[in-house]
Structure formats: C-alpha cells, structure tokens
C-alpha cells in the first residue's frame, strides 16, 4: 500500500511536470501496465483542473498604488520626523525661549524668584513659637535680657545668641553651649533684691508676659527652621529695661550694690520704650534654615495660636497618654541643627539677602546681618536710655561672676571668668592657691583683707596668679570704693611681689652656695 502511495505521490509530481525525464519514462512504463495508476492519474488531473478553474483572478485595484504611495509618504514623513524630532525640538525650544526672553526679559528671574518663594514657603510651613518648643522659664527670659541667649529646644542643647560687633552691627548665632548651670545668675539677682511675695508675683507676671510676647519673636518648625523677628534685638533691650526698672522700684538699695551709683531709670521712659517696641510692625523675619538664609515677611496669628495653646493646655490636663503624645509633638519642634556638617553648605548656598556673612565653627554658627535693618525705635531720649540699658547689662553680667564655695581647709579652687559681654568664646581658668579663705564673698569684696600673711604659702603659685591677673576685667563694674581699695592693694602687692622676687633670688643664691660647699666627712 505504501508503495502505491509513493507511486501516487510521483504521479502527482508527474501531473505537475516536476519529474526528471528518467522518472517520467519509468512512471509512464508503470502507468501503461497499471489500470489503477491510470485511473489515479485521471483523477489527479481532474482535481488539478477543478482547482485551477475554481479560482478567478482577482480584479485589479485601480487606486492600489495611489493608496500605497500615500501610506509610504506618511510613513516616510513619520520616519523623517522621528529622525529630526530631537533636533527640531531643541531648535523650537531655543527659539521659543529666545522669543520669551525678548518680550519678557524677567522670565528667568521670575522663575528663580518663584523657586525662592517655593523654598521660602517650604520653610515657612508649620512655624510655631519657640516657647512652644523650649518652654521658656523666667530664668530664660532673664538670660535673654542680659546675656542675649535663648534656648532653642527644651533640652537646652542649642541656643540662639544675639549680639553686636565692634562696628555696632547686629549678629546672631546658633550655638551648642549656653550659660553654664552653676552661674545661677537669675537666682542671685532675685536673692539680691530680696523680694517679698507680692513683688515676686509681680516679677513672675512681668516675665511670663514677656514670654508670651517672645512667642511671636522666635519661631521654629519641624524642618529645623529658626525664624527670628528683626524686632527681637529691641525686645531684648525692652525686657532688660523693664527688669531693671522693676528691680529699682522693688529694692533700690540692693540694686545699687551691684550697679554704679549714678544708675537710674526713669519709669515713664522705660514704659514708653516698651510700648514703642511692642508697637513696631514686626512681620519681617530672618529665616535661618539648613539650606539657606533669607529675610521675608511672615504673619504670625497670635490669636489663633492662643486658641491652639488653650486647647493644648486642656489636652495636657486630660490624661497621661495625651500628655505623652503632646510631649512627642513638642519634641518635633525642638531645633536640632548639626553645626558641623549640615550648615557647612550654608556658606555656599545662594542667599537671598546679600552681605550676610556667615561664620561656622564646630559649636556655633554666627550670622552677621549686614544690610538687614533692625527696626528703629523712635524715642526722644532713646540714646540715653539705650546707654543706660547697655551699661546695666554689663553690670548684670559682671554681677554674675561665679566663685565656687570654698571650704576653709581647701587649698585650691578653679576660677572661671566669663565677663566680656557679647564675647562668649573667651574664658579664663585660673588655678588659685589661697589657703585659709573664709568665704568666696570675701574674695569678691576684698580678697586679701583677712589674709594671714604670716602663714606659710606657696610663693610660686601666688606669683603666677598675679601674672595672669587681668585687673581690668576683674575690677570692671565693682563699686568705686572697693575699686580704689583694690587698686591700692594691688600696688602693695606689686611691691610685695618685687620683695618676694628679691627674696627668691637670694634664696637661690644661698642654695647655690650650699651646693658648692664640700661634703662634710663623718
């Protein structure tokens, strides 16, 4: 059967005229001998004929070429466009940019400005008062008035320090180290005034009122932005004046002990000044951010914030859980700037305000305000009042000398001096060996009044102390009487020092002589 199929396949090729002459001859021989093959051949021929006759040629399409070339044209246009699209796009962009710049030359500047605004907007979001984050105490307000320092978070690890340079131009700095705890200047001040309960309450209310006022002066947010109101410098003066005025009214005598004799505040002047500071339209803020530094207006809604604070206080009272949440919320607003790395790029950052100089150290970032104008307070006797405030600030700073408590049997103590106002970098450490000192107060008033000179002492360390002694800074701001006595004493000590030097030299000579002697034979 298979062989027959093979023959039929060859028969099919025979009908198609696809066999070689030899194959044709062989097949024709087979066909002549086989009626079956002849029948099959006829069948195949019939099928072939049927197939051929069943299909008519397809009619011509008159628009075939037209359509084809239209499609090709479209196709080639697309391809050309694809090829030239980048170049065309670039040229079109350049041309359109040229046109835009021709008719609107400020186009690019506007874009840059818009970007600046966007950046400014980003950093202006969610600003909350510093009080919210740092929870300012009376001491913080006091330190702000006289030491120009405000803590930036509730852990008091970073501070905002205000100041002015030698040319009188203001600066501010954000620094890691603030006043040291042992200074306790505020406590000393309160102690000195010896206030009664009524006065204490009044003082507290003044301080808390300023804490409220300061709310809108320094704003912070969760993006490490510190927005400093330009009126803050004036506020500091006002608070200082108000505190001193209060101190003067409360206990003038005690105040005079730590202030110069001629020191006096006129109450109406101070009130006028405070009112003037409060009335300044203070919506200009200096925004200090990790990326940039700029001056912009910002409307802080005090009333809205008061409402929020009221709700916040209610929340605080509700329960411990809520309190914890709020504590976490508050921590978010504590400013934590990395002074070493984060702010380093500020030096290169495009600053909105020109002439702003930035000095970055490992523990502080100082910004000289340059052209930024602190809003002036118009007062007829402003100069004199300002001079008094400045002088008083220095006095209070001098007043805060810290001398640790010294035991009678103690032979050595460390003496930290931080006296120069506005210069927080310089400090001096003295190791003073003074035996038999009754109390630190005596050193302060008359360090050597009760000194028993007949007792043995270490002359070298005493001499060293005198060499390091900076009389100007030490005596600065003391009552005149003490100062005169101290100067007299200093002269005596100079004489004594010379005598001691002479004695020392003589002793050395003696010791040399002893050495030169021959040993005694026993």
């Amino acid at each position: 059967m298979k062989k027959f199929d093979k023959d039929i396949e060859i028969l099919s090729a025979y009908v198609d005229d696809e066999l070689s002459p030899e194959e044709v001859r062989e097949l024709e021989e087979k066909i002549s001998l086989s009626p079956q093959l002849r029948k099959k051949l006829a069948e195949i021929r019939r099928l072939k004929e049927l197939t051929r006759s069943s299909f008519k040629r397809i009619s011509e399409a008159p628009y075939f070429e037209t359509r084809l070339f239209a499609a090709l044209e479209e196709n080639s246009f697309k391809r050309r466009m694809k090829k030239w699209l980048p170049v065309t796009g670039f040229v079109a962009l350049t041309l359109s940019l040229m046109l835009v710049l021709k008719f609107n030359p400020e186009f690019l500047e506007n874009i840059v400005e818009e970007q600046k605004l966007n950046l400014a907007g980003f950093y202006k979001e969610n600003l909350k008062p510093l009080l919210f984050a740092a929870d300012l105490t009376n001491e913080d307000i006091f330190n702000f008035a006289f030491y120009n320092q405000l803590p930036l978070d509730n852990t008091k690890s970073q501070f905002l320090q205000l100041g002015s340079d030698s040319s009188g131009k203001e600066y501010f700095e954000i620094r890691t180290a603030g006043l040291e705890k042992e200074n306790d200047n505020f406590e000393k001040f309160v102690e000195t005034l010896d206030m009664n309960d009524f006065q204490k309450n009044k003082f507290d209310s003044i301080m808390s009122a300023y804490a409220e006022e300061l709310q809108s002066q320094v704003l912070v947010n969760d993006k490490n932005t510190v927005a400093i109101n330009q009126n803050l410098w004036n506020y500091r003066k006002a608070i200082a004046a108000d505190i001193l005025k209060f101190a003067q009214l409360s206990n003038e005598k005690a105040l005079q002990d730590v202030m110069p004799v001629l020191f006096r505040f006129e109450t109406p002047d101070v009130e006028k000044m405070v009112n003037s500071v409060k009335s300044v339209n203070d919506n200009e803020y200096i925004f200090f951010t990790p990326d940039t530094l700029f001056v912009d207006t910002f409307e802080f809604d005090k009333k809205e914030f008061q409402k929020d604070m009221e709700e916040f206080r209610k929340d605080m009272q509700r329960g411990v859980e809520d309190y914890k949440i709020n504590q976490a919320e508050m921590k978010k607003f504590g400013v934590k700037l990395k002074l070493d790395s984060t702010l380093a790029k500020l030096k290169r950052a495009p600053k909105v305000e020109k002439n702003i100089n930035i000095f970055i150290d490992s523990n502080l970032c100082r910004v000289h305000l340059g052209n930024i104008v602190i809003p002036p307070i118009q007062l007829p006797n402003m100069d004199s009042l300002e001079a008094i405030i400045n002088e008083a600030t220095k006095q209070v700073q001098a007043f805060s000398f810290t001398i640790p408590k010294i035991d009678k049997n103690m032979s050595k103590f460390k003496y930290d001096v931080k006296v120069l106002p506005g210069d927080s970098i310089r400090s001096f450490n003295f190791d003073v060996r003074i035996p038999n000192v009754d109390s630190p107060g005596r050193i302060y008033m008359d360090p050597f009044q009760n000194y028993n000179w007949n007792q043995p002492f270490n002359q070298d360390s005493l001499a060293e102390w005198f060499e390091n002694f900076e009389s100007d800074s030490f005596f600065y701001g003391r009552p005149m009487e003490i100062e005169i006595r101290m100067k007299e004493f200093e002269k005596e000590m100079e004489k004594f020092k010379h005598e001691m030097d002479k004695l020392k030299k003589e002793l050395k000579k003696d010791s040399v002589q002893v050495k030169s002697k021959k040993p005694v034979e026993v």
Partner: protein
Amino acid sequence: MSLKRKKKVLQPSPRILEIDDDFSLIKRFIEGDETTFRTLVYRHKEKVRNIVYLTMNYSDSVDDIAQEVFITVYKNLKYFRFESQFTTWLYRITINKCRDHLRKLKIRNIFTPVKDIEEVHGYNHINENMDIPDIVRKAISKLPEKLRIPLLLKDIEGFSYQEIADTVQCEIGTVKSRIFRARESLRNILKPYEGEL
C-alpha cells in the same frame, strides 16, 4: 545634427534593458532613486494581490495586506542581498504577512462565538445550491494552511516546486509531499460531490 539625434533616440539602448531588470531597479533605489520603487510595485502588485487572495481565502483585506507587503519591501529594500530572485524574496514576504494575519485571525476567533465566525466567513459549509467552483473553493479552504498554500501556488499561480520551496521556506521534497497530501485530502472532502463534479 537632428538626424543623428533622432537615430540615437530610436536605437534601443542596452540601458533600457537594464532598467527593466528587477535587480537594476533595486540598485537604483539603493542609490537614491526612489521612483524605481513605483515600477517594482506596478510590476508585481497583481501577483502579490493574487497570492494574498488565494492564501487568505477572502478578498476583504487583500489590498491592505498587499500594501503592508510593499511597505515592508520599501523599508527593507536597501538590505536586499541579490542572492535570490527579487520575486522569491517578495513572495516570501507576502506569504509571511498572510501567515501573520491568519495567526491573528485564529487568535481573534478563539474569543469569537463559533456562529459569528461562520456568519462572517461562511467557508466551512458546503451548500447544495453552490456551483462547482464554490464547492471546490470551500473544500480547499478546509485544507490546513501548510497543504493549501503549496497546492494553490502550484495549481493557480503556476509556481515550480523549487519556487514554492523558496517561498514557504522548506525542502523541495516536502513541497512535493504536501501537494500530494493536499490533493488526497481534497479528493476525500469532495467525495460526496463526486457525481456532480
């Protein structure tokens, strides 16, 4: 002077013969003379359309497929290697295009109800009222693609086995076998109509 010129015009130049050749047209196309493509289209469009018509079994999309064939040729003509006849290359493209369409059609039919397919194409049923060519066409349309295409290329288009082998890209023996099998199948399909045929 004018006589001389006249003489030149009248004399059949060897260049004209060269122009008639597919290869020279393609060479000129590659050199940048895109007008020669029009000549190629004019020369081969009917053959291409017929192959499409036979292969696709219905004439609705013949011109669309034929156009696709020529667009593909236009895009790839510069890569033509002159190793085979242009027609072999052209018909191979044509058959491949038809196969692509048939494949798409099969996939589409999977998601179409059987009734709809029959209504649209209607080639699977052979009615008693049909005439002989209709019966034969319907019977051929029932053949599988790999048997139908060689059979039609041979019996209708008159291709040689070698040409069919080049076009459908298989061995010549395979073509021979497929055509035989196509005829055997066709005979079986048409058996009920033996008397009428």
